[in-house]
């Protein structure tokens, strides 16, 4: 039992959190990718840009960047899911064997 790092509650919490994270962050990534207007407010924009072309370029790159960031974060949650799933399984098994 070297690999048991967290207890049954923490691993369950991680499991639920990562499932939620994967679903929501993947969807948010998709929405950033298709340039959803509702998410415009969250983009990192420079308030001093007044040129229209520059502004549009910045928005475009912001959307793409955020889409990628969301998917990467979703991948990180996949890793979390695997780890906490493994922990959960170990915890369950150890409680059964006891």
């Amino acid at each position: 039992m070297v690999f048991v790092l967290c207890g049954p509650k923490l691993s369950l919490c991680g499991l639920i959190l990562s499932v939620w994270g994967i679903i929501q962050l993947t969807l948010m990534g998709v929405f950033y990718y298709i340039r959803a207007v509702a998410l415009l407010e969250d983009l990192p924009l420079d308030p001093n840009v007044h040129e229209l072309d520059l502004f549009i370029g910045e928005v475009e790159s912001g959307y793409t960047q955020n889409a990628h960031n969301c998917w990467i974060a979703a991948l990180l949650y996949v890793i979390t899911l695997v780890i906490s799933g493994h922990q959960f399984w170990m915890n369950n098994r150890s409680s059964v064997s006891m």
Partner: protein
Amino acid sequence: MGAMFRSEEMALCQLFIQPEAAYTSVSELGEAGSVQFRDLNPDVNAFQRKFVNEVRRCDEMERKLRYIEAEVHKDGVHVPQVKEPPRAPNPREIIDLEAHLEKTENEILELSHNAVNLKQNYLELTELRHVLEKTEAFFLAQEEIGMDSLTKSLISDEAGQQQATRGRLGFVAGVVQRERVPAFERMLWRISRGNVFLRRTDLDKPLEDPATGNEIYKTVFVAFFQGEQLKSRIKKVCAGFHASLYPCPPSNSERQDMVKGVRTRLEDLNMVLNQTRDHRQRVLVSVAKELASWSIMVRKMKAIYHTLNLFNMDVTKKCLIGECWVPTADLPNVQKALVDGSNACGSSIPSFLNCIETDEEPPTFNRTNKFTHGFQNLIDAYGVASYRECNPALYTIITFPFLFAVMFGDLGHGMIMALFGGWMVVKEVSLAAKKSNNEIWNIFFAGRYIILLMGCFSMYTGLVYNDIFSKSMNIFGSTWFVPYDNATLTSNAAMTLDPKDAFINVPYFIGIDPIWQTADNKIIFLNSYKMKLSIIFGVIHMIFGVCMSVVNYNFFKRRYSIFLEFIPQIVFLCLLFLYMVFMMFYKWVAYSVFSEEEAFTQGCAPSVLILFINMMLYSSTTPEGGCKEFMFESQGTIQTVFLLIALCCIPIMLLGKPLYLLSASKKSKHVKPENSNGNVNQGIEMQDQTDISEVEQKPQAAASHSHEDEPFSEIMIHQAIHTIEYVLSTISHTASYLRLWALSLAHAELSEVLWNMVLKFGLQDHGYVGAVKLYVAFCFWALFTLAILVMMEGLSAFLHTLRLHWVEFMSKFYSGLGYIFQPFCFKTILEQEDRDD
């Protein structure tokens, strides 16, 4: 059908049971669980009742079971659950069970007694062994010194004298608890004025206390002293400190022999102890298998005898008489249980059931299933419905989740709640089997269907508010567009979208247009929209509540109240507040940017609230140029008429019912004496003598017209309080529904703030570092969403919904003065006791 509409009809029945069949019959009734017994000897104290001895026997058996259970738990033996709970044992089995319990208890008692004795022996021997082993070192050191002095003394001339003194150097060896050592040492030093030489060493391993099984740490000591007097003093001190003294031979070889002897004895004892332990384990395992079913049987027996104690003995002592409330629908079941009961004991004379008439208010019984149970609990928490009163729980099933959802409108949060509720509903059976002592979890689990419905309704209102974690979704395509060109857009920081140019005059398919999420005046718009919604829902909800009172008046044969109370109430409410709702709708329909007429364009729309205040205060505001003060022709006149009619309703509410009752009581005064003559408990006997119509009339009159007997002044005061309360409450309750708007606003703003303060932190980066930041930010955002937005806000919205139902809705028709039907049922008794454990 109609099971939820009002509580079930109850009948007061008398049971006549043969004494032999009593036990089995009551057992059957307990299994059926549909009768509530009444105490027929309330003034007899608990020790003088008929079945006291049996109850005592059950108590004794319970005590034994508790002892056995404690022993079983002490040894950590698993007690298996019973699959099918056993029925109450019949009297012959009781004796067997009693004997069996007695035997088991004695066996376990003896075993533990023996075990304690053996362990005591074992402890003493271990201590002795330790004393012998540890003192070895002391004596060796002592002897070396002794040898030195001996050789010295041999050289000197006074050898004989020295020998004599040395011969009197005695010692005492023993074991004392470690925490007592310092005090013990000091005491020895004091009584001997420093003439005692104490050597001690701690035992490394703790010893086991034979009686309690606790670990105790002890210290071995040897006290050297001179003189008999000192010896007796030291012994006294040892006794005072509970130190156990062991004989320790002074010579080395004797000690070695003794250690050997002790060791072999210890080994033997260990073997015996192991065997005892095995035997005990075997006994306990075999008992543990039966334990659960025995304890259920005993508890059932005890419940039966307690119930039998409520019964009355017939004068001839030939049968037991009991009185009970039974739902009329369950009468056949009760009959069947009685027949089964008398068959079970082979009695030749059947027991029988006789319904009797009574003036007493029967208990309230709403038959619920697992879905409606939660909602019925919400209502019962306010007050149990009066007998056969209209049951608000039926409507609560829909209105409760709906009003909750108006305050909790967010698709994302609703989905979380619905998933949680859905999981509890799907896993219902396995979750219910896992009995938990966690109070919060039990509350959630009991309300699983409410949570599920609240979640689903919140998803719907979230869709209407177009809110998912404070973001809007453009599903059906926004019907607004930007009419400005790029030059205008770049030169202005903020622009107003005039609906005339920017709106295609087709509303968004469902709910709020997503364009509002990006608007600066979003909150102003939503406030006006949600405030109107809450007033509309509130007025409809209250009107519904007032209408429910008709059902009660009609059922309780107080038809005069429909005219004297209900109609003035509903007229008052409708003419003032339903009219306001009407104005809201009219304003929405009549005024538009696209309107041709100037008076109906957007700038001219009057404020509904100002119009309403003007109507109440008879004042007026002069409209701006081109606009009209009122929304339609002769609105001013209509308003004046409405207000006057509404005001006229107040005296009707105030005086109508008291005056009617006054005149009615005058008319019926001559008939009264005859009526009250028949008002005896056993109405059956009177039936032949009195007029049938009168008899039929009487119980209803007694049940419903509790006011009729009161003096006029009392009635008048009651009515005045009711009227003032109603008139004031229509205004305050309407305002109270504004909490729907306030909480919904708070919820939406809180979730927006959470998104902007926490999750946005991870979305503000140009590089890929943002991904890691987002990972962390999402974790915190998710936790806060759960803890604050779903749990805390959910709880507050729940409480406000509860208040809206209890105060604003139920005050219109619900009196809630009944008492709950508590049937004699083994299942509830066992569950209750399990919870107490």
